[in-house]
């Protein structure tokens, strides 16, 4: 009796010692990703390499494109074909992708973009760490919109947040960026991949009307402001465009249609901030000196909190897991109690500025503890800068 060849599963349940780049790729597969379109770029290339090996094993496709413009366009196309889709890149590639990330926002296309950040601007530091694309992830494409960006600080979280990213993308019909960095992408740690049954997978809403019976309204949103998604080949004769459009998906070029669509695109994210915004608190209950950080920087910041506590300084850490939408309310509350807030990040104050905005008119002063890319903070460096302001 011949035994059927055992299919290689889309979830490699087990314990591993591996890198953030491979973890984010496996997390994507675990989330149900079936398509990756990409272009090689340091320090993200291992994501593409791993997807090239794995996707054909799980019945998906990997295509290496001629550039990042094409990569993200293909990701949107595959999503409209009904497949969960993603790409991975770094700053220079993300710069090329922002055009069609905007199209993804306007067409309300679920997809995931991994940005393994390096130092910029321009070619910058291809092989070294940076966190300089956080505002680009927010504002990179032209026009007004809201977007979701998540930032893992461990290899395990690269896996876990990949699943969250796909789920948010599907639930809110929006491109989601995973803001990794070179260090998280390349360092190796323990990764535990759960059983398939333990992975929560969300899928985009399907239309309730039957195809072909009446004219389908592809952009008629439900009460939650999110329209169900009819993809290609289902018989709905679905229509989508990057132009300002109405519920029919037809272009309408006037101010009232523009106001209606931009409001809805923003509000479907903003009204669900409680579901989307995640952060981690460490020793914050009695903290007078609060560090805010994310990604690899948050690990040095945690070390600095421990050093400070050893010296009797009441320090704590707020780690942003969701970068966008921004955790304004949580930061505002903290700024009422804390004496000083320090933002630890590897850029020239991109999140510091955001925290200053959120904490404006509150008690706490806000300072950035900044590096400009190329190396990560040490806990001692952070403590030294804290002590100068205490």
């Amino acid at each position, binding site marked *: 009796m011949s035994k059927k*060849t055992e*299919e*290689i599963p889309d979830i*490699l349940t087990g314990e*591993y010692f*591996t890198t953030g780049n*491979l973890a984010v790729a*496996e997390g994507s597969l675990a989330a149900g990703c*079936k*398509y990756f*379109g990409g272009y090689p770029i340091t320090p993200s290339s291992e994501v593409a390499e791993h997807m090239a*090996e*794995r996707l*054909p*094993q799980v*019945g998906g*496709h990997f*295509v290496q*494109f*001629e*550039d990042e*413009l*094409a*990569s993200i*366009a*293909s*990701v*949107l*196309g*595959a*999503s*409209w*074909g*009904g*497949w969960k*889709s993603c790409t991975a890149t770094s700053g220079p590639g993300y710069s090329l992708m922002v*055009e*069609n990330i905007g*199209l993804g926002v306007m*067409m309300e296309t679920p997809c995931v973009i991994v940005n393994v950040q390096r130092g910029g601007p321009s070619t910058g530091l291809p092989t070294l760490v940076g966190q300089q694309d956080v505002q680009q992830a927010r504002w990179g494409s032209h026009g007004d919109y809201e977007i979701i960006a998540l930032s893992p600080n461990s290899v395990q979280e690269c896996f876990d947040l990949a699943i969250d990213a796909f789920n948010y993308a599907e639930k809110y019909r929006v491109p989601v960026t995973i803001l990794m960095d070179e260090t998280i992408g390349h360092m190796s740690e323990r*990764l535990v991949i759960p059983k398939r049954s333990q992975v929560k997978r969300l899928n985009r809403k399907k239309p309730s009307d039957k195809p072909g019976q009446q*004219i389908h309204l592809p952009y008629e949103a439900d009460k939650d402001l999110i329209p169900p998604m009819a993809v*290609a*080949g*289902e*018989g*709905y*004769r*679905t*229509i*989508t*465009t*990057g*132009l300002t459009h109405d519920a*029919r998906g*037809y*272009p309408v070029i006037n101010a009232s249609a523009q106001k209606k669509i931009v409001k809805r695109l923003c509000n479907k994210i903003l009204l669900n901030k409680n579901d989307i915004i995640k952060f981690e608190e460490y020793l914050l209950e009695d903290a007078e000196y609060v560090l805010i950080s994310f990604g690899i920087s948050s690990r040095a910041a945690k070390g600095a909190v421990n050093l400070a506590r050893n010296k009797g300084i009441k320090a704590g850490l707020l780690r942003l897991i969701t970068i966008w939408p921004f955790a304004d309310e949580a930061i505002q509350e903290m700024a009422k109690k804390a004496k000083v807030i320090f933002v630890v990040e590897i850029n020239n104050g991109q999140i510091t500025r955001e925290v200053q905005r959120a904490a404006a008119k509150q008690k706490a002063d806000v300072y950035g503890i900044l590096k400009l890319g190329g190396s990560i903070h040490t806990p001692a460096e952070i403590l030294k800068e804290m002590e100068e302001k205490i």
Partner: protein
Amino acid sequence: MIKKESNSMILDAEAHPLDSYLRPGRIPHIWCSGCSLGSITTVVIEAIIESEIDPKNIAIVSGIGCTGRAAGYLNFDSFHTTHGRALPFAIGLGITDPNRKVIVISGDGDIASIGGNHLIHAARRNADITVFCVNNFQYGMTGGQVGPTSYIGQYQTTSPYGNIEEPFNLPALAASCGATYVSRWTALDVRRMKESFVEALLHKGFSFVEILGACPTTYGRRNQLRDGLTILENFKNRTILQHGIDPMKAQIQKDGPIIVGKFVEIQKPTLTDNLLRLHKMAKNVKPEL
């Protein structure tokens, strides 16, 4: 609506036999009087009908520009994307279902200029896509700027002294990059155009059809061809049918011959064929983390 009465077809005065292929409420279109896009769109619909491809499996993708608006008028799954990116969008859409027929309808500026890199690579991969590229020799929608298909000496708003750059020869470009079906027609030649469209739709792999269209508004009036009919007459007087000719010999110059015909028709494994082949190969490789 077509009403059947005692075996004779009676057409309602307000109706057109192809109405069901156009999205309700989208007509009148934005195209100018004398533009060829209306008749080209009609031929696209007729060719789709003649190809007998299940309409459910058809997806129309376009970029930006006058031609790019065709996607929004056609009553199939349709995707009006960004400038130049119709082809990679179409590749992603196409490979998710081997039964899907993806048609890209877009202009010369969209496909050969801002999307030029995607054109050559889509042809190289033999992606399963049919491209109907309408060439009006310039950028119409933005007001008549010079484009990659403008001939030397052509007057446009950004070539006020006459164009100084060589134009692309689109069939030669597509063929040299690996397109497996390549043809060119003028918008006047609707019969041959339709036959060729049907062939292109039924072709497996990357099929590229260039259609020379009249744009009296922003091309013609600056180049002594004041209306649509004059441009089509100009095409007619210059057209030479030469099937199978090396497309390198089909460059269009000012007042020179316009060589039309089917230049390439070969069979090669397509991108989708090759991607599906990988599935079998990958089955025996144990994943490593």
